Each structure stands twice: as C-alpha cells, then as structure tokens.
C-alpha cells in the first residue's frame, strides 16, 4: 500500500467515526430534551398524526399480505410433514417476533425517514433552521425530539397492528385457501405465543422507531447544497434507516434470546 492510500484509508475511517459521533450526539441531545423545558407537545402530536395515522394503511396492507403469504408458503411445507394444522402457530410466531416489527418499520422508514430528511433538509438549505436558532429556538428540541418521541410511540402500535392484520391475513388464507378450521387456526396461533415472543416483538419496534427518526433527522440536518442535496439526504436516510433496522434486528434477537430465552 502506498503511503497516500494509507493516509486516505485513515481519513475515511476517521470520517466514519466522526459521523458516528455526531449521530450519537444528536440522539443523546434529542432524548435529553424530553425532560427539559420547553416541551413541544403540539409538535409531537402533529408528528404522531403524520407518522401514525399516515402510515396506517400501508402497514395494514403490508401485515395482511405478509400473513397471507406466510400461510400459503408454510402450509405447503407443513403439509409435507402432515402438520398443516400448525400453520396458525408458525404464522403468529414469525409475525410477532420478526415480520410484523421489521416490515412495519421498513414501511415507516420508507415513508417517514425520507419525509423527515426532506423536510428538515429543505429547512436547512433555505436557512429556516438558522432562522429558528436566530429567533431563540433550539432546533433539536423543536424538530428532533418531537419526531423521536412520536416515531417511537407510533411505531410500537403500528407493529402490533401489522401483527394483528398479519394473523388475520394468514387466517383468511388458511380457511379459504387451505380449508383449515377457523377455530383451530386461532387457538394454535394464540397458544403458540409466549411472553418471550411478545418481549421481542414489542422491544424491536421501539428501537426501530428510534432508528427511523434519528436517521431521518440526522441526514436532513446535515443536508447541504440546495434541492439536490436535499434529494441526496432523503435517499441516504431511507437506505441507512432500512439497513440499520435489518442489522439491529439480528442484534436485538440475539441479545434477547441470550437473556430471556425463547420457547421454540
């Protein structure tokens, strides 16, 4: 390796570490503000509306069809072992542990991480963020904290809704497509779920919600260079948030299974 190449590699690593540091700092300041006056309740409620109500239709559709396709695919495999009546169980477990939280959060990331990045990004390039500071407002408190809180809360409920509609989708396919008994599907789905599954299924959307909001705001706030820069920030935010969700999903699963275990 030439000295120059070495130098550049060092530079790149240093840059990445600096970015990570800045990201962490933003996250820390965003959370610290939750407990400091002034509180921007109105802004938080408006964000909850944008994120929660706005994402509801796509999360319902995502959950429903994911559940249906799971029933379709799993029942075929289970039939080979003569255990097709366990379809409900497998659909419920995979939805609650993984697919509900992950897919709902990916949808929220696609919609809201990009939305936040473009909104804050255009505020940066039109100097509205500077204007806010000039007028005595901390933009982190006014813009980032409400988005963090709102996404964290709404993503939690959206994941539950994705789970519910997923099981409904699976049930409809199981009854109409495979001819399973309705009551059997529901009881197998219901009894399969253990509190440890719920812990996993409810921890993940909270963490993913934080990722979506923090990444969206981070890329938005560091947008530079006019509308082009805002577009770039928007794309980067969706890609980064989606990747972080999928990678952290593995880490959270691993850690939770280590500490609280898993039934099946």
């Amino acid at each position, binding site marked *: 390796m030439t000295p120059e190449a070495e130098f550049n590699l060092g530079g790149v690593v240093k840059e990445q570490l600096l970015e990570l540091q800045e990201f962490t700092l933003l996250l820390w300041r965003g959370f610290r503000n939750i407990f400091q006056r*002034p509180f921007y309740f109105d802004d938080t409620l408006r964000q909850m509306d944008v994120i929660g109500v706005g994402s509801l239709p796509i999360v319902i559709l995502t959950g429903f069809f994911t559940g249906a396709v799971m029933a379709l695919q799993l029942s075929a495999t289970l039939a080979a072992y003569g255990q097709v009546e366990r379809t409900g169980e497998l659909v419920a477990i995979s939805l609650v542990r993984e697919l509900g939280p992950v897919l709902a959060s990916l949808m929220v990331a696609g919609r809201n991480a990009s939305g936040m990045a473009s909104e804050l990004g255009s505020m940066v390039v*039109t*100097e*509205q963020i*500077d*204007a*806010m*500071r*000039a*007028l*005595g*407002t*901390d933009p982190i408190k006014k813009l980032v904290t409400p988005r963090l809180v709102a996404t964290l809360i709404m993503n939690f409920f959206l994941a539950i809704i994705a789970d519910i509609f997923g099981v409904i989708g699976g049930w409809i396919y199981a009854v109409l497509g495979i001819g399973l008994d309705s009551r059997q599907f529901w009881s197998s789905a219901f009894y399969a779920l253990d509190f440890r599954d719920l812990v996993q299924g409810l921890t993940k959307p909270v963490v993913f919600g934080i990722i979506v909001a923090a990444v969206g705001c981070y890329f938005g706030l560091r947008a530079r260079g006019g509308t082009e820069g805002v577009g770039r920030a928007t794309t980067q935010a969706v890609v980064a948030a989606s990747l972080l969700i999928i990678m952290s999903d593995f880490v959270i699963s691993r850690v939770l299974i280590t500490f609280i275990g898993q039934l099946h």
Partner: protein
Amino acid sequence: MLSSTSGHDSLESAGAAGPVLRFENVHLAFDGLAVLRGVSFIARRGETKVLLGEAASGKTLLLKLALGLQRPDSGAVWVLGQPVSDLPESRLFALRRHIGMVFQESALFDSLSVRENVAYRLREEHELTEDTIEQRVRRALSFVELEEAIDKMPGELSGGMKRRVAIARALSSEPEVMLYDSPTGGLDPITSTTIMELIIKLRDENNVTSLLVTHRLQDAYLLATHVWDTQNRRLRAAAPERSHTSFLLLREGKVWFDGDGHQLMNSGDDYVKTFME
C-alpha cells in the same frame, strides 16, 4: 454618535460605550479551506456597515458569526459587549433577542402564517399574553406596511412581501442590532427601494446598528446619501457624513477596504475601483 476615540477602548468596557459590534482577527476554515483569514472591524451604535465582496467571500458568514450561529476557529466576535464567539448556546439565546436577522431568501417558516412567523419569537418566550403578542405583531407588520397580509401563508407572498415579513419578524423583539443578508437580492428596483427605505428608517429613527450585505451598488449609494426625514415620512438626500454608513470590502478572507462613502468613492485602489463599476 459616539466620539471617535471610543472605538479603541479596551474590551472590558465594550458595553454601552464601546462599539456595538466588534470582530477581532477572525479566522474560519471549512474542510481545510480558509474562508476568513483574520477579519477585524467595528460598528458603532447607529451605524450601518455595508459588507461588499465577491460571491463566496464570506459575507453571510460574518452575519452568522455575529449571531453566534457559526463559531470562529480563532479570533473573537463581540456584540453589545458580549463575547458571542465564547458564549454557550444557552446564553446566546438570550443575547439573540437583541439581534434581528433578515436571511437571504427570507427563510420564513413555510408551515406558519405571516402572523405566526412574526409572533414566533414572542411565543417562544412564553411571557406575553395573546393580546400583547397580537399588538406587537401588528405593530411590526404596520412598520413594513404589510398588515393586510397577516393571515396569508408565505407561499402566497411575492418576493418583496416575503422580505418585508422577514424584516417584521426580525423586528418583533425590537432589537438594537440588525443583520441583513442581501435584503434586495432578486427584487425589482422599485421593490428594492421600498426595502432600503425601511432599512434607512430603522437606522435613523430607531438608531439600530446594522451589518448589511448587498450586491447592488444602488443600495449602497442610497444608504450613504440619504437619511430618513421623520417629519415628512420619506427619504431625503443628505451629505454622506450624516448617513452613519460605512463600507467594508472583503477580499480573499481579509478586509480589503474599510471606510466611509467618501473614502470608498475616492479610493485609488484598483480592486476597489473594479468593484465599484
């Protein structure tokens, strides 16, 4: 006006008596590229300092440094006797109450009405009643002669109206210092004159100290040769020494020229001359 000696007072006494704005050997670089390389100047109470310079010479940065939105790599910025460049953000919020800024493209909050834009700071302070806020908003809007637009959204306004709302918003806390970033940029000549008239009125009627970035020589000329006639409510021609206006030309990160209108127009320096053409 202050006596000419007060500009050389020590920093400790730079409160009421010293210059309102003071830059001391300010350096600032981005990604290793030096933009400001030792900028020093002062502005006294009631004075308007016109900042001239090529694109990307750092004019906007000087305004942001004065507000504490940017911090210098080295050197110091003093505003109203406070060391802006060293204050923590929490202390800066209090100081910024006394400094109004009009951003280049107005930077109005898109999602808020004209009323809410102008009321923004007053609401953030959580101290005033609704009635007082409404009164103050109307007073600021009537100063810029735009009271009828109070319920409009920024998207419905023309460029000149936006600029006037931005001035009203900056005035809501009745600041002693105003910072204008190309306040006439992108406006037609007639609208530009209206805006400049407001700025001169603030200078002469309210004794506001200001930094003003402009690309238009007409603006600089108007500032240097006209004063606000309080009796007749219009501009009146006056000798440059009565206009409390001085000029600062930035070049390659340094102050290339700093002086009044007479000195600027009679300068023998080639760069100043090409700049004045």
